[in-house]
Protein backbone atom coordinates (compact mmCIF):
# COMPACT_ATOMS: atom_id res chain seq x y z
CA UNK A 1 0.00 0.00 0.00
CA UNK A 2 2.40 2.63 1.16
CA UNK A 3 5.23 1.40 -1.06
CA UNK A 4 2.97 1.93 -4.10
CA UNK A 5 2.26 5.47 -2.98
CA UNK A 6 5.95 6.09 -2.49
CA UNK A 7 6.84 4.77 -5.92
CA UNK A 8 4.06 6.75 -7.59
CA UNK A 9 5.00 10.03 -5.99
CA UNK A 10 8.74 9.55 -5.91
CA UNK A 11 9.62 13.21 -5.97
CA UNK A 12 12.77 14.56 -4.35
CA UNK A 13 12.00 14.15 -0.68
CA UNK A 14 9.99 10.94 -0.67
CA UNK A 15 13.01 8.62 -0.53
CA UNK A 16 14.11 10.37 2.67
CA UNK A 17 10.63 10.12 4.18
CA UNK A 18 10.40 6.45 3.24
CA UNK A 19 13.84 5.67 4.66
CA UNK A 20 13.04 7.44 7.90
CA UNK A 21 9.77 5.57 8.39
CA UNK A 22 11.29 2.23 7.41
CA UNK A 23 14.15 2.79 9.89
CA UNK A 24 11.77 3.65 12.73
CA UNK A 25 9.17 0.97 12.06
CA UNK A 26 11.75 -1.65 11.14
CA UNK A 27 13.83 -0.76 14.19
CA UNK A 28 10.86 -0.98 16.52
CA UNK A 29 9.80 -4.28 14.99
CA UNK A 30 13.28 -5.76 15.19
CA UNK A 31 13.78 -4.66 18.79
CA UNK A 32 10.36 -5.96 19.80
CA UNK A 33 11.10 -9.29 18.14
CA UNK A 34 14.51 -9.65 19.76
CA UNK A 35 13.10 -8.75 23.18
CA UNK A 36 10.22 -11.19 22.88
CA UNK A 37 12.49 -14.01 21.70
CA UNK A 38 14.91 -13.38 24.56
CA UNK A 39 11.97 -13.44 26.95
CA UNK A 40 10.75 -16.77 25.58
CA UNK A 41 14.18 -18.34 25.80
CA UNK A 42 14.72 -17.12 29.36
CA UNK A 43 11.19 -17.97 30.51
CA UNK A 44 11.89 -21.66 29.99
CA UNK A 45 14.68 -21.49 32.53
CA UNK A 46 12.67 -19.81 35.28
CA UNK A 47 10.00 -21.39 37.44
CA UNK A 48 6.46 -20.16 36.66
CA UNK A 49 5.88 -18.74 40.16
CA UNK A 50 8.80 -16.39 39.64
CA UNK A 51 7.26 -14.99 36.47
CA UNK A 52 5.01 -12.74 38.46
CA UNK A 53 3.10 -11.30 35.52
CA UNK A 54 1.68 -14.56 34.14
Amino acid sequence: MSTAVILAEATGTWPYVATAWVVVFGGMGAYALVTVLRGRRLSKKVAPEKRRWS
Partner: protein
Amino acid sequence: MTTETVGSVEASDNGPTSTGSRSTMILGIVTLVALGVLVLFGLILSPADENQGEAVRIMYVHVPSATLSYVGCFLTTIGSAIYLWRKSRWWELLAYASAEVAALFTAFTLITGMLWGRPTWGVFWIWDARLTSEAMLMLLLLGYLAVRGLAADYQVRAKRAAIVGLLLVPNVLIVRESVQWWRTLHQKPTLSLAGAHIEGLMLFSLFTGFIAITLVFIWMVIHRFRVAWLEEQVDLEGLDEAIAERRAEGVVS
Protein backbone atom coordinates in the same frame (compact mmCIF):
# COMPACT_ATOMS: atom_id res chain seq x y z
CA MET B 1 5.63 -1.44 6.69
CA THR B 2 4.11 -2.58 9.94
CA THR B 3 4.15 -6.29 9.18
CA GLU B 4 7.26 -6.93 11.25
CA THR B 5 5.69 -5.40 14.31
CA VAL B 6 2.46 -7.25 13.78
CA GLY B 7 4.15 -10.62 13.65
CA SER B 8 6.27 -10.20 16.75
CA VAL B 9 3.68 -8.61 18.99
CA GLU B 10 0.92 -11.03 18.26
CA ALA B 11 3.18 -14.02 18.54
CA SER B 12 4.54 -12.85 21.86
CA ASP B 13 1.42 -12.50 23.86
CA ASN B 14 -0.27 -15.85 23.50
CA GLY B 15 2.29 -18.30 24.79
CA PRO B 16 2.42 -19.07 28.48
CA THR B 17 6.24 -19.05 28.60
CA SER B 18 6.99 -15.52 27.51
CA THR B 19 7.23 -11.99 28.80
CA GLY B 20 3.67 -11.35 27.66
CA SER B 21 0.56 -11.20 29.81
CA ARG B 22 -3.11 -10.41 29.17
CA SER B 23 -2.61 -6.70 29.80
CA THR B 24 0.45 -6.40 27.59
CA MET B 25 -1.40 -8.26 24.84
CA ILE B 26 -4.19 -5.69 24.96
CA LEU B 27 -1.58 -2.93 25.06
CA GLY B 28 0.14 -4.52 22.08
CA ILE B 29 -3.04 -4.59 20.03
CA VAL B 30 -3.88 -0.97 20.90
CA THR B 31 -0.31 -0.03 19.96
CA LEU B 32 -0.61 -1.70 16.58
CA VAL B 33 -3.89 0.08 15.88
CA ALA B 34 -2.28 3.39 16.83
CA LEU B 35 0.67 2.68 14.55
CA GLY B 36 -1.75 1.91 11.73
CA VAL B 37 -3.54 5.22 12.29
CA LEU B 38 -0.16 6.96 12.34
CA VAL B 39 0.77 5.46 8.96
CA LEU B 40 -2.64 6.41 7.56
CA PHE B 41 -2.51 10.03 8.67
CA GLY B 42 1.25 10.59 8.58
CA LEU B 43 1.93 9.18 5.12
CA ILE B 44 -1.37 9.39 3.27
CA LEU B 45 -4.05 11.71 4.61
CA SER B 46 -2.03 14.66 5.86
CA PRO B 47 -0.88 17.25 3.30
CA ALA B 48 2.68 18.25 2.49
CA ASP B 49 4.02 21.35 4.22
CA GLU B 50 4.36 24.61 2.31
CA ASN B 51 7.99 25.09 3.29
CA GLN B 52 9.29 21.65 4.10
CA GLY B 53 7.34 19.72 1.46
CA GLU B 54 6.96 16.00 2.05
CA ALA B 55 9.87 16.05 4.50
CA VAL B 56 7.47 17.25 7.19
CA ARG B 57 6.23 13.65 7.38
CA ILE B 58 9.52 12.69 9.01
CA MET B 59 8.57 14.97 11.90
CA TYR B 60 5.65 12.73 12.84
CA VAL B 61 8.07 10.01 13.94
CA HIS B 62 11.08 12.21 14.73
CA VAL B 63 9.59 14.54 17.33
CA PRO B 64 7.89 11.79 19.40
CA SER B 65 11.09 9.69 19.31
CA ALA B 66 13.12 12.64 20.58
CA THR B 67 10.64 13.33 23.39
CA LEU B 68 10.61 9.70 24.49
CA SER B 69 14.39 9.44 24.44
CA TYR B 70 14.35 12.15 27.10
CA VAL B 71 11.53 10.46 29.01
CA GLY B 72 13.62 7.27 29.04
CA CYS B 73 16.62 9.13 30.46
CA PHE B 74 14.45 10.66 33.13
CA LEU B 75 13.12 7.23 34.13
CA THR B 76 16.67 5.89 34.26
CA THR B 77 17.77 8.63 36.62
CA ILE B 78 14.70 8.22 38.85
CA GLY B 79 15.16 4.44 38.92
CA SER B 80 18.86 4.72 39.70
CA ALA B 81 18.25 7.22 42.49
CA ILE B 82 15.60 5.05 44.15
CA TYR B 83 17.82 1.97 43.78
CA LEU B 84 20.72 3.72 45.50
CA TRP B 85 18.44 5.05 48.20
CA ARG B 86 16.19 2.05 48.91
CA LYS B 87 18.14 -0.81 47.30
CA SER B 88 15.02 -1.61 45.30
CA ARG B 89 15.78 -4.07 42.54
CA TRP B 90 12.47 -3.27 40.79
CA TRP B 91 13.56 0.33 40.21
CA GLU B 92 17.02 -0.72 39.12
CA LEU B 93 15.58 -2.99 36.45
CA LEU B 94 13.22 -0.22 35.35
CA ALA B 95 16.21 2.09 35.00
CA TYR B 96 18.03 -0.49 32.90
CA ALA B 97 15.03 -1.27 30.70
CA SER B 98 14.23 2.36 30.00
CA ALA B 99 17.88 3.21 29.30
CA GLU B 100 18.03 0.58 26.60
CA VAL B 101 14.74 1.65 25.03
CA ALA B 102 15.83 5.30 25.31
CA ALA B 103 19.02 4.44 23.41
CA LEU B 104 16.89 2.92 20.65
CA PHE B 105 14.73 6.03 20.39
CA THR B 106 17.80 8.27 20.49
CA ALA B 107 19.14 6.35 17.50
CA PHE B 108 15.80 6.85 15.71
CA THR B 109 15.92 10.56 16.52
CA LEU B 110 19.43 10.95 15.13
CA ILE B 111 18.77 8.97 11.95
CA THR B 112 15.43 10.62 11.17
CA GLY B 113 16.89 14.03 12.05
CA MET B 114 19.68 13.53 9.53
CA LEU B 115 17.23 12.26 6.90
CA TRP B 116 15.13 15.37 7.49
CA GLY B 117 18.15 17.64 7.35
CA ARG B 118 19.41 16.42 3.97
CA PRO B 119 16.43 17.63 1.89
CA THR B 120 15.74 20.63 4.15
CA TRP B 121 19.19 22.04 4.91
CA GLY B 122 21.08 20.26 2.13
CA VAL B 123 23.36 18.41 4.54
CA PHE B 124 22.93 15.41 6.80
CA TRP B 125 24.52 17.05 9.77
CA ILE B 126 24.85 20.57 11.03
CA TRP B 127 26.24 21.48 14.42
CA ASP B 128 22.82 22.43 15.62
CA ALA B 129 22.37 22.61 19.39
CA ARG B 130 19.62 19.99 19.42
CA LEU B 131 21.31 17.54 17.09
CA THR B 132 24.57 17.81 18.97
CA SER B 133 23.04 17.36 22.40
CA GLU B 134 21.04 14.37 21.16
CA ALA B 135 24.29 12.82 19.92
CA MET B 136 25.86 13.40 23.34
CA LEU B 137 22.80 11.86 24.95
CA MET B 138 23.40 8.74 22.85
CA LEU B 139 27.00 8.53 24.05
CA LEU B 140 25.98 9.01 27.68
CA LEU B 141 23.38 6.25 27.35
CA LEU B 142 25.93 3.95 25.74
CA GLY B 143 28.20 4.57 28.72
CA TYR B 144 25.44 3.59 31.13
CA LEU B 145 24.61 0.47 29.14
CA ALA B 146 28.29 -0.49 28.95
CA VAL B 147 28.55 -0.40 32.74
CA ARG B 148 25.24 -2.19 33.26
CA GLY B 149 26.24 -4.90 30.81
CA LEU B 150 29.54 -5.69 32.52
CA ALA B 151 30.39 -9.31 33.13
CA ALA B 152 30.33 -9.01 36.91
CA ASP B 153 28.10 -9.72 39.90
CA TYR B 154 24.65 -8.16 39.91
CA GLN B 155 25.58 -5.97 42.89
CA VAL B 156 28.67 -4.60 41.19
CA ARG B 157 26.99 -3.96 37.85
CA ALA B 158 23.83 -2.49 39.31
CA LYS B 159 25.50 -0.20 41.80
CA ARG B 160 28.05 1.22 39.40
CA ALA B 161 25.48 1.63 36.65
CA ALA B 162 23.18 3.38 39.11
CA ILE B 163 25.85 6.01 39.81
CA VAL B 164 26.14 6.63 36.08
CA GLY B 165 22.35 6.59 35.71
CA LEU B 166 21.88 9.01 38.60
CA LEU B 167 24.05 11.54 36.81
CA LEU B 168 22.40 11.01 33.43
CA VAL B 169 19.82 13.79 33.66
CA PRO B 170 22.20 16.33 35.26
CA ASN B 171 24.71 15.56 32.52
CA VAL B 172 22.13 15.88 29.79
CA LEU B 173 21.01 19.24 31.19
CA ILE B 174 24.55 20.59 31.44
CA VAL B 175 25.45 19.31 27.98
CA ARG B 176 22.32 20.87 26.46
CA GLU B 177 22.98 24.16 28.18
CA SER B 178 26.62 24.29 27.13
CA VAL B 179 25.90 23.26 23.54
CA GLN B 180 23.20 25.90 23.27
CA TRP B 181 25.52 28.63 24.53
CA TRP B 182 28.26 27.33 22.30
CA ARG B 183 26.09 27.65 19.18
CA THR B 184 24.38 30.92 20.04
CA LEU B 185 27.46 32.81 21.23
CA HIS B 186 29.52 32.14 18.18
CA GLN B 187 27.15 31.55 15.30
CA LYS B 188 23.86 32.77 14.09
CA PRO B 189 20.90 31.11 15.79
CA THR B 190 20.17 27.81 14.12
CA LEU B 191 17.09 26.95 12.14
CA SER B 192 14.20 25.86 14.25
CA LEU B 193 13.23 22.25 13.77
CA ALA B 194 9.57 22.91 14.42
CA GLY B 195 9.57 26.06 12.32
CA ALA B 196 6.70 24.85 10.21
CA HIS B 197 3.29 26.24 10.88
CA ILE B 198 1.51 23.11 12.00
CA GLU B 199 -2.27 22.89 12.21
CA GLY B 200 -5.23 20.81 11.12
CA LEU B 201 -4.40 17.36 9.78
CA MET B 202 -0.69 17.91 10.25
CA LEU B 203 -1.16 18.69 13.91
CA PHE B 204 -3.39 15.64 14.24
CA SER B 205 -0.72 13.46 12.60
CA LEU B 206 1.90 14.70 15.02
CA PHE B 207 -0.51 14.05 17.89
CA THR B 208 -1.10 10.51 16.59
CA GLY B 209 2.65 10.07 16.39
CA PHE B 210 2.99 10.98 20.07
CA ILE B 211 0.27 8.53 21.09
CA ALA B 212 1.55 5.65 18.96
CA ILE B 213 5.23 6.05 19.78
CA THR B 214 4.46 6.48 23.49
CA LEU B 215 2.50 3.23 23.46
CA VAL B 216 5.39 1.49 21.72
CA PHE B 217 7.73 2.88 24.37
CA ILE B 218 5.58 1.59 27.23
CA TRP B 219 5.20 -1.83 25.61
CA MET B 220 8.94 -2.08 25.05
CA VAL B 221 9.89 -0.99 28.57
CA ILE B 222 7.49 -3.53 30.11
CA HIS B 223 8.84 -6.37 28.02
CA ARG B 224 12.47 -5.34 28.43
CA PHE B 225 11.90 -5.05 32.16
CA ARG B 226 10.58 -8.59 32.27
CA VAL B 227 13.49 -9.88 30.23
CA ALA B 228 15.88 -8.16 32.65
CA TRP B 229 14.01 -9.70 35.58
CA LEU B 230 14.29 -13.16 34.00
CA GLU B 231 18.00 -12.61 33.37
CA GLU B 232 18.56 -11.90 37.04
CA GLN B 233 16.51 -14.96 38.03
CA VAL B 234 18.59 -17.16 35.76
CA ASP B 235 21.75 -15.64 37.21
CA LEU B 236 20.55 -16.33 40.72
CA GLU B 237 19.56 -19.92 40.08
CA GLY B 238 23.02 -20.54 38.80
CA LEU B 239 24.46 -22.03 35.71
CA ASP B 240 24.36 -25.66 36.85
CA GLU B 241 20.64 -25.70 37.42
CA ALA B 242 19.96 -24.10 34.07
CA ILE B 243 22.04 -26.68 32.29
CA ALA B 244 20.30 -29.53 34.12
CA GLU B 245 16.92 -28.08 33.22
CA ARG B 246 17.78 -27.76 29.59
CA ARG B 247 19.01 -31.33 29.49
CA ALA B 248 15.73 -32.51 30.97
CA GLU B 249 13.82 -30.51 28.39
CA GLY B 250 15.85 -32.08 25.64
CA VAL B 251 14.80 -35.55 26.80
CA VAL B 252 11.10 -34.68 26.98
CA SER B 253 10.77 -33.04 23.61
